[in-house]
C-alpha cells in the first residue's frame, strides 16, 4: 500500500481514497461518491492527461487534474 495523489495513478490503475483535502470542492466530490473509503479507478484521460475520467461508485466522473489533486489514494 502506497499513498499517492489520485492524479498520479495511471490509466487502468485503481485504489481506495484515503483522504480528500478539506475546502469548497470536498462536498462536491462527496456528492459524486469521491470520499474517503471509495474505490476509484482511472478509466481514461484527455490529451495532456487533463481532465481525467474515473470510475467511482458505479459511475464515471471527470475531473480536472488540479481537482484530482484534492484526493489522495492508497494503491
Amino acid at each position, binding site marked *: 500500500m502506497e499513498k499517492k495523489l489520485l492524479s498520479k495513478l495511471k*490509466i*487502468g*490503475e*485503481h485504489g481506495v481514497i484515503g483522504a*480528500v483535502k*478539506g*475546502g*469548497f*470542492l*470536498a*462536498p*462536491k*466530490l*462527496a*456528492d*459524486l*461518491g469521491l*470520499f*474517503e*473509503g*471509495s*474505490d476509484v*479507478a*482511472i*478509466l*481514461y484521460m*484527455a*490529451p*495532456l492527461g*487533463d*481532465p481525467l*475520467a474515473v*470510475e467511482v*461508485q*458505479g*459511475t*464515471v*466522473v*471527470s*475531473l*480536472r487534474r488540479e*481537482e484530482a489533486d484534492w484526493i489522495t489514494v492508497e494503491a
Partner: protein
Amino acid sequence: MSFSIKKIALVGNPNTGKSSLFNWLTGLNQKVGNFPGVTVDRKSGTMLLNGQSVEVIDFPGTYSFFAKSEEEKVVQDVLRNRAHPDFPDLFIVVMDKTQWVRNFVLFSQLYDAGLPVLVAITMGDRQVPFEVDIDEFQKKLNVPLVSINGRTGEGVEDLKSAVMSFEEPERKVIVDDQFIHLLHDEAGQIADTKARYLWIQQHVPKKSRFNSKGKVNALDRWLVHPVWGYVIFLSILLVIFQFIFRFSTIPMDWIDGGFTHLATWLQGALPAGILSDLITQGLIPGIGGVCVFIPQIAFLFFFLSILEETGYMSRAVFIMDRLVRPFGLNGKSVVPLMSSVACAIPGVMSARTISQGKDRLITILVAPLMSCSARIPVYTLLIALVIPQEYWLGWIDLQGMVLLGLYLLGLVTALLVALVAKWLLKTVQPGFMVMEIPALQPPLWRQVFLTMWEKVRVFVVDAGKVIVALSMIIWALATFGPSERRALAVQRVEQTWQGSDDEKEKVLAAVNLENSYIGIMGKGIEPIIAPLGFDWKIGISIITSFAAREVFVGSLATIYAIGDDEEDNDRLMDKMKKDVRWDDGTPVYTLASGSALLVFYAFAMQCLATFAVVHRETQSWRWPIFQLVYMGLLAYLGAWITFILLA
C-alpha cells in the same frame, strides 16, 4: 376518485431521465421560464388526472440538498421553505437504476426531511450487470415506488395512479433528520453524504457488484482518443454546419418570401396611410425578422439535443476542456462558440448548459465575435469591391485569404476578449469542472423534438418581443423625418427628374432615406466615422444594419437608388466603385476604407436578435448593453487602425 394533490415537483440527479418523464406527464402542455433572479430554466406543465388539473414542475438536476451550483440552490430554496410558491404537494424523486447508490443520497435527504415523496425508477430497460432489490427497498422504507420506462412510456399510467392514491407513509429516519443544520458545515455535509452512500450499500445491496474496474467501453475509447476523438468531434461539427449553412437557407427563403408576400398583399388590401405602412413595413418585416431565425435554431438544437441525449456532449467537453481553459473558458463553452460561427443566437442559447456562472457569461459575451453567416453578404460585397482579384504565389486567391482572415480575426478576438474578461470579472464562487460522464445511449427522439420546439418557442416568445419592438423603432426612424426638409428634397427631385418613372421611384426612396431621422443621424455621425474612411452613406447603413448585418447591403442599395428588392450586387458594386467623396473627389471605397469596413463588421454587434437573446439569457439589460458597447469600441478601434495602416 378525488385527491388533494395540485402541484408536483420532479426532482432527481442529472441524467436520470427526469426530463423524459416530465415530457410523458405533460406532453406539449409545458412552458419554460426562469426561476426568479437566476438564469435557471423553470419548466412547468400541467397534466389531467381524473379531470383534475395538476401542475408539474421539472426541477433542475440536483445531486444533493447541499447546493453547489445555481441550479441546486434553486432546489434547496424550495426544499427548505414550505411557504415557497413552488413548494409542491408531492415530490416525485426520479432514480436511475444504473446509478442507484448515488441517486439514493438525494432521495434519503428528502425522506429524512419529512417531505412527501414518491419514487419513480427509470432505466429499467437498460442492461445492467446488477439487480436492485426493489421489493426490499420498498419494504424497508415504506415508500410508494413505480418503475417507468422513459422510452416507451410504460409505467407512466401506474405512476399517475400512484399520485392519485398517494398517502403519507409512516416512516423512520434513515440517516439523520437534522441534516438541514449542516448548511454551513462542509465536514458535516461530507459525513452526511457518505453515511447515505453507506446506508444503501449495507441495507439494500445490489444483487451483484458492478465491476468494470478500468474497463472502458469500446466506443468511448474512440470518442476520447487523442487523435480520433478530435477527428470525430470536428466531423460532427462539419455535419451540423452543413445543415445550418446550406439546408436552413431553404426554409429561411420560404419564411422571407412568405412575409414579403404577406406584406405586399396587405399593402394592397389595407387603405393606404400611416397605419398600413406601420403594419406592412414595420410590424410584418419585424415579425419576419424573428421567424427567419427559426430554421437555424431548430437545426442546431436538433443536433445539440441528440449530442446531449446520447451522452456524447460530455465526451466532447472532456476532450476540449484543457484546450480552451487558458482563455477563461471551459469545455462546455466550445459548442456554443462553434455554433456561433453559424449564428450567434442559438450559440448564446446553448450556453445555458454551462453551469459555471462566470464561464457562461464569458462565453455569451464573446460568442457574437465569431463570424456568423449573416456577415457573409457584407463580406462578399466588400471583398469583391476593394480586394484585388490576385493570386499569391500564383495560386492562393487573395480574396479567399481575406475572407479566411476575417474568420480567424473573429475567433482570435473572441479568445482574447475571453482572456481579458477572465481577469476582469469577479467570481462569486470558485468554478470547478467535476462532472459526471453518463453512459452512452441511443437518443430519445421524442425528447429531441420537444427540445427543438421548446427552444424555438422561447426564442420567438421571449426574444421576439424585443426584436419586433426595436426593429419597429428602426423602421420608424428610417421612414419618418422632419417633414419640411423631406418635402423640399422630394420636390427637388420631382422638378428636375427626366428619367423613367421606375428609376424615379428608386431615387425618391434614396432621398427619403437620406432625409429620414436615420439619414440625419448617419450624416450626424460622419465626423465620428470619417477617421475610419467612412462617409454618411456608410453611416446610415451602419445604423440601419443594427437590425441585422445583412441589412447593410440592402440599405446601401436603397441609398444608391438601386432598389433594395433587387439582388443586384453587380450594379450596386458598380455604383459604389464610382462613388466619390463630396469634398475632395477621391473614391469612397478604397482598399483602406473597405478593409476598415470589413474589420468593423467583423467586430460590431450589429444584430438586434443577438442583443435580445443575450438580454433573455442573462436576465439583464446590463450585459447586452455592455456587449454592444465593447464590441462597438472594438469595431471602431479595429477599423481605425486598419484604415491608418492601409491608407
